[in-house]
């Protein structure tokens, strides 16, 4: 039976939980301002507190031995510590990204890939995600059977996409390109593409046996279960899957935002940049495909965007189209390399990765993804938006013919691509801030270019916001009812 002292201890704990819950509430409100994805995590915290309080209530009316009760109380105390740590994390404003509005297209995009998913945009994602996992693991151990885990997690998204964004980074088109790649990882998971290497690697078993023999000096006994060979295969599979995963995420990124995904490979051409990693690069070499391979695959993925005719291909734009095509072609030629030698270990890895990518692309090309950025849309919108930028007008809408004063909102991907095209055209004169450490540019020039770039990025971000607001307005004017009305007239 629970003694009076134990009950008092539980009351004390219940008070502590209530106090943590009241501390968590203002954070939840603040977080609500920032992103619905984050709110869910905050609400989750509060739900967990509620579950614990309910459980404490059950304890008070139940019968327990002194020992059992102490055990339960100590478990709950442990849970409280973890919750307190997480709520403290929420308290820090520095950890919330502050330009969430510009990222809102991702919410819809992620929902169109998986309705159960939710986006958490945080700058310290690793920490947050780890603490979430820790809470979840703890809950599995501490929650009593009659409060099921499903109850506690009801309403919680099935997937989290945790995007780690460097807040100081001011390159908005680049931001979007990086995010597209990261969302690509999510699509890779949703599409269960990790199964492909599992099928492809065994097909190369004989070649792998050769390499095993060459390296270890023994032939694996394939009839019996050979531990060493199986470990050897595992290592190969890991390297292949990791490289293939990055390549597929790049491809999905290109499907999402089109040609401006090339911006994600921003290190290209900078001092210290290498097209091909060498084995000496260790983890980077083993886990990542070369930039050469990534670039070539991206060029292949964006080819449909640049083929065909652009809607506003006027004399001026024709030159821009030619420049864009030449740019892509030049890079394609410059990056081409002879096929990897299969008798070299890394050459064989490349071959298997290529095979995996080919199979994956065959699989995904048949799928009609609703989130995919339509290449025809790109060709329709790109130059009208680009011309607006040249005229210092935000590229937020498309005017269907001169007769319309009110245009239709442009797609956010088209806005990004128009901005990217502008960036490509004007980079050298206006925005080139990469080469400051060559010592060729004065500090004043660099500051001036940074300022121009920041102003341009704000201009692009604002255009995306305007197009989103406009689209919402067209879709459902009623949802803005009240807001759009005039203030109530005062009767005379």
């Amino acid at each position, binding site marked *: 039976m629970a003694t009076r002292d134990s009950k008092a201890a539980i009351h004390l704990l219940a008070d502590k939980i209530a106090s943590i819950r009241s501390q968590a509430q203002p954070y939840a409100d603040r977080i609500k301002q920032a992103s619905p994805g984050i709110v869910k995590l905050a609400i989750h915290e509060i739900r967990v507190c509620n579950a614990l309080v309910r459980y404490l209530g059950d304890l008070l009316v139940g019968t327990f031995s002194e020992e059992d009760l102490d055990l339960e109380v100590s478990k709950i105390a442990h849970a409280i510590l973890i919750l307190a740590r997480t709520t403290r994390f929420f308290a820090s404003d520095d950890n919330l990204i502050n330009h969430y*509005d510009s990222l809102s297209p991702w919410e819809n995009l992620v929902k169109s890939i998986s309705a159960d998913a939710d986006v958490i945009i945080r700058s310290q994602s690793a920490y947050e995600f780890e603490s979430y996992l820790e809470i979840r693991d703890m809950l599995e151990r501490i929650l009593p059977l009659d409060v099921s885990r499903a109850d506690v997690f009801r309403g919680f998204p099935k997937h989290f996409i945790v995007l780690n964004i460097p807040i100081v980074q001011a390159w908005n088109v680049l931001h979007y390109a990086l995010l597209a790649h990261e969302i690509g990882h999510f699509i890779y998971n949703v599409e269960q593409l990790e199964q492909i290497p599992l099928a492809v690697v065994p097909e190369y078993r004989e070649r792998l046996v050769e390499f095993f023999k060459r390296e270890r000096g023994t032939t694996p006994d394939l009839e019996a279960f050979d531990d060493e060979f199986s470990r050897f295969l595992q290592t190969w599979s890991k390297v292949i899957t990791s490289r293939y995963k990055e390549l597929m995420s790049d491809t999905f990124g290109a499907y999402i935002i089109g040609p401006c995904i090339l911006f994600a490979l921003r290190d290209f051409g900078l001092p210290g940049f290498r097209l091909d990693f060498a084995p000496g690069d260790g983890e980077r070499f083993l886990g990542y495909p070369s930039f050469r391979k990534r670039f070539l695959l991206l060029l292949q993925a964006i080819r449909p965007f640049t083929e065909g005719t652009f809607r506003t291909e006027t004399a001026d734009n024709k030159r821009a189209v030619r420049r864009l095509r030449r740019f892509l072609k030049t890079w394609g030629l410059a990056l081409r390399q002879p096929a990897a030698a299969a008798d070299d270990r890394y050459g064989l890895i490349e071959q298997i990765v290529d095979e995996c990518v080919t199979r994956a692309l065959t699989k995904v090309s048949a799928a009609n993804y609703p989130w995919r950025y339509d290449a025809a849309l790109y060709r329709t919108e790109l130059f009208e938006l680009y011309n607006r930028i040249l005229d210092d*007008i*935000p590229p*937020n809408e498309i005017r269907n013919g001169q007769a319309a004063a009110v*245009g239709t*909102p442009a797609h956010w991907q088209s806005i990004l691509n128009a901005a990217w095209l502008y960036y490509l055209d004007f980079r050298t004169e206006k925005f080139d801030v990469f080469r400051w450490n060559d010592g060729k540019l004065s500090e004043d020039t660099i500051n001036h270019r940074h300022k121009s770039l920041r102003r341009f990025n704000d201009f692009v971000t604002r255009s995306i916001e305007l197009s989103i607001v406009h689209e919402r307005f067209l879709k459902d004017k009623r949802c803005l009812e009240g807001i759009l009305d005039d203030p109530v007239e005062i009767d005379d």
Partner: protein
Amino acid sequence: MILSRSTISSLLREADPERRLVITPLLDEAEQVGKASVDVRLGNEFVIVNKQTGILGIDPLRRTNLAQRLMKYQRQMKIPFGSPFYLHPQDFCLATTLEYLAFPQTLAAYVIGRSSWGRLGLIIATATMIEPGFKGTLVLELANVGSVPIVLYPMVRIAQLVLHSVGK
């Protein structure tokens, strides 16, 4: 000469970019373009004035560190669309319009408040002239001269532009 609705409409549709009047996004032309004015909406970026600044005063003639001193005095904030912004009695803030404007060299405009807001005690703008060739969003100086807080939402029709043609 003050421009009428039909002139404004044709300028919005002008094919020549040099002579076109750009107001984007013009969410609802029928509602926003009046007989001799265009309504503009409130944006979601505000600059509010800090109450406790630790500075004695702003002397615009003392240019040294003026920007830094102003940063102490003012704070930028962004309100999500659909969320309220409270402007308290005797408070002052800067706000932008939702619309981006691009004026041809042949047009100028005055920004004036809308009477429905004025009756609640909201003063919309004090520096009201838009020069020919202006490009950008308008900065509005909002002041609540009433005795109760006024709740503002991004996207409300906050002010109106009275457009004039400019002689050669």
